[in-house]
């Protein structure tokens, strides 16, 4: 893909203008994180170098200023992901309530290790740090949705539902 081909559609362009208007004149770089989220949602769930260059051109900053931000934050994917990125919390309270069992169950069921993508490209497992769902542990996040108080049965039905829905998960 070349930079010329990468362009937000009209609806996304409209959102870009809305976001840029949230900051005082000359402080548009502040739109960096919201625009990266939007770009990730619009362009297949990850930020390729050309997508980041495109965001740099909108913000009128050097591409490196985008790269250094995108590589800092854990929510930005710098490689293609599975259609559903399953982000499993592994920190204290979730660990106390059986997060490792949940991870092993998912690894066995999907026949992948954490970090990997299933052969059909549908699911990817990722271990993440505390998502602020400690009272409803164990949990995972897929896109902007929290799945809480997980049990093996619950996981089975969630995966089944998503397989049927077959639509890329995004945060935006």
């Amino acid at each position: 893909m070349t930079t010329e081909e990468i362009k937000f559609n009209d609806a996304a362009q409209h959102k870009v203008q809305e976001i840029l208007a949230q900051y005082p004149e000359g402080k548009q770089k502040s739109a960096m994180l919201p625009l990266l989220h939007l770009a990730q949602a619009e362009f297949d769930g990850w930020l390729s170098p050309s997508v980041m260059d495109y965001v740099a051109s909108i913000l009128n900053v050097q591409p490196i200023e985008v790269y250094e931000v995108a590589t800092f934050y854990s929510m930005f994917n710098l490689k293609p992901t599975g259609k559903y990125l399953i982000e499993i919390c592994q920190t204290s309270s979730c660990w106390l309530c059986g997060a490792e069992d949940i991870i092993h169950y998912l690894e066995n069921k999907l026949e992948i290790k954490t970090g990997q993508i299933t052969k059909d490209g549908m699911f990817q497992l990722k271990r993440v740090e505390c998502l602020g769902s400690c009272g409803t542990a164990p949990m995972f996040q897929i896109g902007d949705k929290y799945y809480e108080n997980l049990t093996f049965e619950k996981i089975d039905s969630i995966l089944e539902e998503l397989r049927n829905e077959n639509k890329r998960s995004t945060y935006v």
Partner: protein
Amino acid sequence: MMSKKLLLKYDHIPGIQALDVYRKHEGYSALEKALKSMQPDEVLEEVKKSGLRGRGGAGFPTGMKWSFLAKPESVPRYLVCNADESEPGTFKDRYLMERIPHLLIEGMIVSSFALGAKTSYIYVRGEYFYIIKILQNAIKEAYAAGLLGKNILGSGFDLDLYVQPGGGAYICGEETALLESLEGKRGNPRIKPPFPAVAGLWGCPTVVNNVETIAAVVPIINDGGEAYAKIGVGKSTGTKLISASGHINKPGVYEIELGVPVEEFIYSDAYCGGIKNGKKLKAVVAGGSSVPILPTELILKTAKGEPRLMTYESLSDGGFATGTMLGSGGFIVMDEDTSIVKNLFTFARFYRHESCGQCSPCREGTSWMEKLIKRILDGNGKISDIDLLWDVQSKIEGKTICPLGEAAAWPVAAAIRHFRPEFEAYINQHNTIKEVKHYYRLNNLAEV
């Protein structure tokens, strides 16, 4: 005894997320009172009188923080709400924003009025995207009702309020890292001074306050600072949201009057409802992952034998030798079967992942601590590793730009301080197994 509720008084009302329902339950009465009958300085006075302390974790008096705000002529001032809730064990802000979003919006408008901010931001951790949508919706409703925008309620006061998403980084809960992030940069904490009150967002005077802190301004203005200060014990005034999790019967968010005994909080059915499966309590992390873990005997009673209370002072009684901190109110409970070392490993892994990498003691120290704890858990540890771990943590504390260094060091120090035999058991047990295997030439057997 049930605690008085100020923030979660109406969170159970169906539809309270909507503006019209919220308004039927005292909603925006604090805003009307402030805009129609008070001067900005009078709002500040009430907050000072209330004794409210920052609810994000540091517990700094809010009125004092507000009074530090520089007010140079013709320079904009900003109020930024810190909703980057990421401290393991803490989920109260999420609960508040999800259940009763207009309480935060109202608090933001009243606080902005007091500080003279004409533009304010709520910086929400990116993972809470569904919360961002809830807040944006509430803000839209508030604009439509003339509670935001130009000439709010005919008072002449203007305010624009925006929600900013984070990108997934614990460090952005540190206020200067948050401001860097809000400016579209990596979340590297700034060197202080200057403090944000003088040079904050885009170099302008800025106040950064936690969600719960800003929400608490609403009841303070409604009932007066003095009424708020009457709740609680000593310098721990008012109510506090506690996020309770771990091995308890009733995990969740509880609003308590500061001063509830820890024992009551753990065992009463009004709160945690006791330990799950009838097991015994082993340890508690009382204020989010950063604060020292305490064993049962020290969390229920101070070293002097007095009942430990849920207050800033009582929880820190005895210093770190025998006490801890109220912190963010992230209350993680562990039962008798919990491995303190394994739990510590999840903390160490967390801080290694979240260190921004700016200061070497933290960048190098956090990964070193994680590796050492892993080595002990894997059965390859030596007794001297415990001392090494102690040494590493002591060389992070106080040697970094921001408090993430301390936050990473304290849990390690406390685990060794109170549970050293457990570390030794991991090491000795594995050494014994190795010796037995060696003696019987069983080295080709699978790892235990």
